[in-house]
């Protein structure tokens, strides 16, 4: 990989990352989305956030992990804390602590 290639990659990625974030909101100032699409956009947070959470709890190195996976149980404990206390720092703290305890218990 030459230095030129590295810089082409960095600048290309920067342009792409900005374009996908900026153009949809900029274009929507001038155009309105059809109601069907607006309806769909309301489910973006639930669908994408679950897509970021579930694989971390259910898979290991790209494979289905099964029940003997400490992340699954630590995640469920954290979910309970998140639901009960609605506190981000507490949830992350308890989740990490549960993971360390489960790992040192040999799960």
């Amino acid at each position, binding site marked *: *990989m030459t230095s030129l*290639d*590295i810089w*082409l*990659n*960095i*600048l*290309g*990625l*920067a342009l*792409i*990352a*900005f374009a*996908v*974030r*900026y153009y*949809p*909101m*900029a274009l*929507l*100032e001038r155009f309105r*989305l059809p109601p*069907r699409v607006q*309806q*769909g*956009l*309301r*489910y*973006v*947070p*639930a*669908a*994408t*956030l*679950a*897509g*970021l*959470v*579930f*694989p*971390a*709890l*259910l*898979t290991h190195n*790209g494979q289905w992990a099964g029940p003997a996976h400490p992340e699954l149980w*630590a*995640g469920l404990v*954290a*979910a309970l804390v*998140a*639901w009960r206390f*609605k*506190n*981000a*720092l507490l949830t*992350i703290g308890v*989740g*990490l602590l549960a*993971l360390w305890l489960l*790992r040192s218990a040999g799960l």
Partner: protein
Amino acid sequence: MSPSLNSPKAAFWRGFVEILPMTIGVIPFGLVTGIAGLKAGLSTLEITLMSALVFAGASQLVALQLMHSGAAVPLVLLAGLVVNLRYVMYSSAIARHLEPFRGWLKPLAAFLLVDQNFALTIGRYRQLGPSFTPWYFLGGGVPQYIAWVSSTYLGALLGARVPERWGLEFAIPLGFMVLLLPALHDRPSLAAALVGGLVATALVGLPYRAGLFVGAVAGIAAGVWLENRRRGRAWEDAPQEMKEGP
């Protein structure tokens, strides 16, 4: 409940403070990305500038892995595009909330759009109201940016791997979990999460984290389908006089 806001400045700082717990999860991710940069043959300067200019963790990590295996530039960029497709949805969904921003504030807000301040801002919109929401969003983006750039720099500087058994990366999904729960306010959104999460899990082996995008599309479809079905049924069950109207 926190007191109501009276200025854009106060909204900015509330966003700044409220995102801090989730920012902790960014640090291990940044360290790993910095180390991946070293492996791909980038200098510390190049790695840090990459984070400062791109500011999209997953796409940087995938691109660096491809660069490490000697992939051609177009392939690296294509992978970066696929990984970042969810931002098209985020940007469309948050366009209305950022509507009041004019001039350079709009591209700045777009540049600072990440998973965390997107979900946090959408969740707080009703409480914040239209005029303070954009400032809250911007305030949430700043700590994320600082943490991202400095932790990748640190990762490149240290080079040594943070011991894997610490499991610090697990802070990332935990942070997303805190954001996920309030997004589940009815049955269609619950269905969207279940389908989105399970499809993303089933497709976790796909390259370029494409499973996340496919899962999101499937989850959205499930939510819309269930909402329309319930609405349709409520319509059928409604008394005849209601349908005919006054």
